[in-house]
């Protein structure tokens, strides 16, 4: 891990109502880094998708556990780590969304992870030794 200028940490209840507060927390940090508003939105969307995945897939529903959000504001960008204590869930194992198919065949499963990978410079998943999952993402300024 690079030497960080500032670290912010907060835990949020794992429910969909928390998504707005998690996004606000991350958006504020992204603005402190000095990202353009377009990049702030990209970070905001990536984190929302990751957290919605945690609630839906790792916890299998709302109010099963917290989402710990750790942000490092670095000189060159922002590093975000999201940790849950649910069942192992590796989003990269979810099949890629099928694009360019007739609308009746469009499925949105996997779209969240697909977006994260497109919008962030790095996305890494690992299962935690203490149980649960860790998703780490990085975006350069």
């Amino acid at each position, binding site marked *: 891990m690079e030497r960080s200028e500032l670290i912010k940490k907060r835990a949020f209840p794992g429910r*969909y*109502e928390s*998504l*707005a507060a998690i*996004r606000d927390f991350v958006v504020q940090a992204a603005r402190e880094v000095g990202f353009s*508003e*377009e990049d702030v*939105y*990209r970070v*905001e*969307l990536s984190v*929302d*998708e990751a957290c*919605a995945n945690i*609630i*839906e897939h790792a916890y299998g529903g709302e109010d099963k556990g917290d989402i710990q959000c750790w942000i490092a504001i670095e000189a060159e960008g922002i590093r975000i780590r999201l940790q849950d204590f649910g069942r192992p869930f590796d989003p990269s194992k979810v099949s890629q*969304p099928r*694009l*360019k198919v007739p*609308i*009746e065949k*469009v499925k*949105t499963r996997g*779209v*969240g992870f*697909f*977006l994260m990978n*497109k*919008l962030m410079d790095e996305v890494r998943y690992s299962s935690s030794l203490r149980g649960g999952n860790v998703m780490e993402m990085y975006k350069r300024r």
Partner: protein
Amino acid sequence: MDVIVTQYKRCDVVKAAGRVDSYTSPDLEKAFGEIIGAGRYKIVFDMQNVDFISSKGLWVLIDAQKKCRRYKRGEVVLANIHPEIRESLNLVGLSNYFKIYDDLTAAVGSF
């Protein structure tokens, strides 16, 4: 999230304000569901005041589009999309499934 539906002679306009995510998307789903349930399938989604939309919200739009286009009875068109939202629609290829208008008058006039 505030969702206002206005019924016009040739179409319905759904105007939402705020952020569409996993928590708020049921409000949008309900609005589309009521219009479609009433047998009206020509819908403009005015996104002027939509600041954020996650994949959950995109799914609501795709689901509504599937229902409206069935039997060629209508469709959902989008108006006033913020550029950031347009980028995510493009990235996942969903912009191919919607006509997108720069303003509401053009969107309503398309029906």
